[in-house]
């Protein structure tokens, strides 16, 4: 592992790739000095992440660097041993997962994890489980089926029998049905053919343009940075780089270590 990627830099809040200065924006989701342990094993170490309303932020890192753990910590599956997670300036770390979800975070899990014996429709409906506004749910379902027209033909098909790409779409649709303020995505490109990866990332961009804030975890750094506004790089549980997507793409250390150029 190359050591030279550098010390953690302060997240450059609000400096988007297009250079607009929005310095005084408040983060919608923030991890403040978070450390997470599984028993005695330390996984995350003093992680600071800020995600701003309306942006796509990405978290890049190799295998076992702690990407999934970061998302699990945000969602309350594991409680941080130090630091706190804030959603709209309210501390949510320590709350039950269901409470965090109710407050507006939803997740597309690693490997999609559909309810494979339920139909596509049932999967999507479960996404809206904690909502009660029937009409709005029906409208959102319609909208999601517009975004993923393929799913409309397969509404009554068992989710487990869908192709990998279709499953990814159901997983995204299911998470969107919760009408989240922040959508977390864990390696949406995993296990997909390159052409599908392009398609999935295009859809992520579309979803974001419709107004959802997105925090996407990826190993496929090029792909993630091509749609993201800002990125964080995680190495053995520590954030070693944080910058705009553009600067990360141009960062020589980054290019050498992560983007496959020498």
């Amino acid at each position, binding site marked *: 592992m190359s050591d030279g990627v550098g010390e953690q830099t302060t997240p450059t809040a609000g400096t988007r790739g297009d250079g607009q200065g929005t310095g005084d924006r408040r983060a919608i989701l923030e991890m403040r000095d978070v450390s997470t342990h599984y028993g005695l094993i330390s996984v995350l170490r003093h992680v600071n992440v800020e995600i701003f309303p309306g942006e796509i932020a990405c978290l890049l890192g190799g295998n076992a660097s702690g990407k999934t753990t970061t998302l699990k910590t945000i969602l309350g599956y594991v409680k941080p041993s130090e630091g706190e997670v804030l959603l709209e300036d309210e501390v949510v770390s320590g709350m039950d997962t*269901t409470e965090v979800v109710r407050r507006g975070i*939803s997740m597309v899990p690693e490997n999609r994890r559909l*309810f494979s014996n339920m139909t596509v429709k049932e999967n999507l409906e479960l996404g809206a*489980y904690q909502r009660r506004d029937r009409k709005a749910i029906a409208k959102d379902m319609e909208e999601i089926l517009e975004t993923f027209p393929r799913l409309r033909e397969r509404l009554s098909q068992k989710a487990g029998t869908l192709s*990998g790409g279709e499953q990814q779409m159901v997983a995204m649709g299911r998470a969107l049905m919760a009408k989240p303020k922040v959508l977390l995505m864990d390696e949406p490109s995993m296990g997909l*053919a390159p052409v599908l990866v392009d398609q999935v990332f295009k859809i992520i961009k579309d979803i974001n343009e419709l107004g959802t804030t997105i925090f996407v975890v990826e190993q496929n750094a090029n792909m993630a940075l091509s749609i993201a506004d800002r990125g964080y790089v995680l190495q053995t549980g520590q954030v070693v780089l944080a910058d705009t997507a553009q600067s990360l793409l141009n960062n020589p250390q980054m290019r050498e270590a992560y983007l496959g150029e020498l």
Partner: protein
Amino acid sequence: MTMARSELRRRAVRAGLLAAVAIVYLCLVGMVQAFSTRNIVGGNLPLSRILLLLPSAVAASLAVRPRVRGGVTMELNMGEAAGAGASIGLIAGAAVAVGIGIVNLIGQEAVRGVFNAVTSALMLTLTLQRSTVVGTAILVALSTATGALFALAGVLAPRLRRPIVTGLTVVLLMGMLQSVVRVMLVQLGLATQWLYSVTFGGLTYLGAVASFAAGMAAARLWALRREAAAADAAERAEAGGRPRIPRAMLLVPVGFVLLALPALLGTFLSAVLGQVGIFVLMGLGLNIVVGYAGLLDLGYVAFFAVGAYATGVLTAAVNSGSSLHPGLPFLLAVPIVVLIAVAAGLLIGGPVLRLRGDYLAIVTLGFGEIARVLVTSDWLKSFLGGAQGLIAIPAPTMSVGGLHIDFRNPQPFYYLALGFCLLAAFVSWRLANSRVGRAWNAMREDEQVAEAMGVSTVRYKLLAFACGAAIGSLGGALFAVQIGSLAPSSFVFFISIQSLAIIILGGMGSIPGVIVGALVLVGLPGFLTEFAEYQPLIYGAVLVAIMLYRPEGLIPNVRRTRELHEEEVEQDAWLEGVPEPAPSMTLGEAVE
């Protein structure tokens, strides 16, 4: 396309050997002999003979079913099927013949030292009451013919096969349930002599033909009705209208029969139905815990005990063995019993929230035993009567216009049980189709993801235990009413197994399945006393057979069918192995 010779031969031999094993087994455990006095049709076809031929019949008809190989359906023609069936029957018959030979060679006494069912009566049954050689020869011939006939039935088109199989099943059931049907006919003031022989007890030949015809007609009508229903549904889908006959209308005749049953069946058979009712409640309750929420509870007897003992203590008026005897009226006691059961459900549910699958099963098993130990213990003796149990539990009574009804009598008891069952079934049905039901489904499939959807698994697990406990305690309450005294020895592990077997047989998560399961597993041994002795054996066999061949149960719940029939998934197994994308540049690789 027809099948390769060698494959057909292999299949026939395997089916024949399986049938042989089944027959020898049935003989050795004594079932064949136990059924030798129950004539089904005429004086020459007792249940024992049917039992000797049934395995070959089933094996033959299943072995010749078309198979799909490599996208091609392989069918047998009539000749091949008959040949295969005959060999299956021959193998099975020959196995019995060999068995008879061995017994004669070593001597009955020697064999009886190990298999005590091998009596001279059994040998006579096997040789059809004739000399050994002649009898054995006839048996082998009969077995061969049965195999051939049923193999032929197996290759018939379903349109023809179904009515025949239904007809035969009806004949068998009418013969087996002779006492039940006869009592009903007598109660209705109808003649029975034409249907059941006075001398043999079984169906007369006329009766058998009539039953067969009735079965065939019913199968045909059912098929027509389904076609009509399908057409109707299609039409409705186009017109967007409602069904012509509302579903609820179909419930009227069912309700009528349910209400009339005790009058038709008389005291003894009503008592059996009351017992069935208790286990319908147990099944419905466990169905919520296991079928809906997916929490395998092997200690369900605990809630049965809670219901029974709470009812006993609360309703007892005189010294019943408990120092408490508030003498509450039954209907007032029931809500309190349910509350106590809910508390017990939460108490058991709490500690096992984090456990899954086999660990959960073991721990709940322990809780079931703890319940038994607690009611036996001296510690609670002053409340629960210790090892002596509780006595003098009063039966609820009611006076209607000078008519005094005692609910311990089987017929009124049946109505009480029916009321409880309807209530429990309604609650289960509403739960299954509500938000709660969907939460349970999600939780059963993937707990973690369910949480991410906002389903609080803690809350819903506790709710499942509480609902299951409440319904099971109603079963216990009925039990206390029915027998009037409670002994700790009534609350054994076998009750948990029985409840579980009922929902497995009927189909997890299916309410009608619970009812059918209870009727078969509790009702049948009650109606046919010969079966009672083999109850655990039948449970075991039923469970194994269902798990192997029809894991979704007899009356499946749609979702469970999807969960358990994995062929669909196998077909798409390649999906799992979608080739990893050639990662142009992934972080992991670059870093290493």
